[in-house]
């Protein structure tokens, strides 16, 4: 029976066949989820917007090697955004000219948002950001996918090219490091 619901696999397939509407529908679907994730990793909304945008541009540029997890590109986007966020200036360098040429909302509004973000930024979130940056990229990606985004360890391992056992061990150690970092930071 045709339910009329188009799976993301089908949308992704169409996008890879140069269907712009299919690709932009992926942007519409996952933009906010990726943006909220990146906000946990960078210092302001401006950087988060650029990291999020760079992730989607990379999704297209590296479409031949993208791995779908649970029939979705979202895990790939989250991991890629995490890598870019570890060094925003380097990660967005390829698209610097493009981003600088694109229009933005009133700068005063953006500054207000940034000010609010810093003012209301929870102290523990700052500790978490520091702890995440301390982890190796693959370990940080594991924490993001499994702990923060509720993907199964097996799914995250597939995306990161790790064995199931190795992923579980690395995740356990990563959690321990974060726990230790948070404990030390609060004492």
């Amino acid at each position, binding site marked *: 029976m045709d339910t009329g619901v188009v799976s993301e696999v089908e949308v992704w397939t169409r*996008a890879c066949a*140069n*269907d*712009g*509407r299919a*690709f*932009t529908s992926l*942007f*519409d679907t996952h*933009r*906010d989820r990726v*943006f909220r994730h990146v*906000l946990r990793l960078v210092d302001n*909304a401006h950087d*988060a*917007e650029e990291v*999020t*945008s760079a992730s*989607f*541009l990379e999704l*297209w*540029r590296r479409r031949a090697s993208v791995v779908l997890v649970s029939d979705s590109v979202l895990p790939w986007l989250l991991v890629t955004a995490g890598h870019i966020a570890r060094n925003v200036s380097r990660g967005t360098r*390829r698209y*610097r*000219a*493009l981003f600088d040429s*694109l*229009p*933005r*909302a009133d700068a005063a509004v*953006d500054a207000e*948002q940034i000010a*609010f*973000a810093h003012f*209301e930024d*929870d102290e523990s979130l700052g500790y978490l950001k520091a702890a995440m940056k301390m982890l190796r990229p693959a370990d940080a990606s594991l924490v993001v996918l499994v702990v923060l985004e509720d993907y199964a360890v097996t799914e995250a391992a597939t995306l990161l090219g790790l064995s199931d056992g190795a992923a579980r061990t690395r995740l356990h150690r990563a959690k321990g490091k974060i726990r230790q970092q948070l404990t030390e930071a609060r004492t």
Partner: protein
Amino acid sequence: MKQIDFDPIFSAAVRNELDARVTAPMTHIPFWRRHLRLGAGIFAGASILIGGAAAAAGLLTMPGANEVTELGASVVETATGTAAVQLGAVPDGATGILVSLTCLTPGTFTFGDVR
């Protein structure tokens, strides 16, 4: 806590850019402009500029020389052997590319697709 939203104007611009890149009619662009297949040899720092013949400030300003205006961002790739250099979407008004190759070690390179 006040929710921070994605700048809607920036988002729309990025969305348009994605749409343009995905739907770019590849067949209208000569193959060699997008893919420079470089044969044997070791090279590094191949920088490619997309330019047009428009006037204004040019990169080559010697008297009598063509005036070249850079319309797109330069792409720098380091590779050994055969490599495909992705140039992205073609900027409006672009009429050609400028390629610069710097060899790290002795070798040769060929443009097999250029006629």
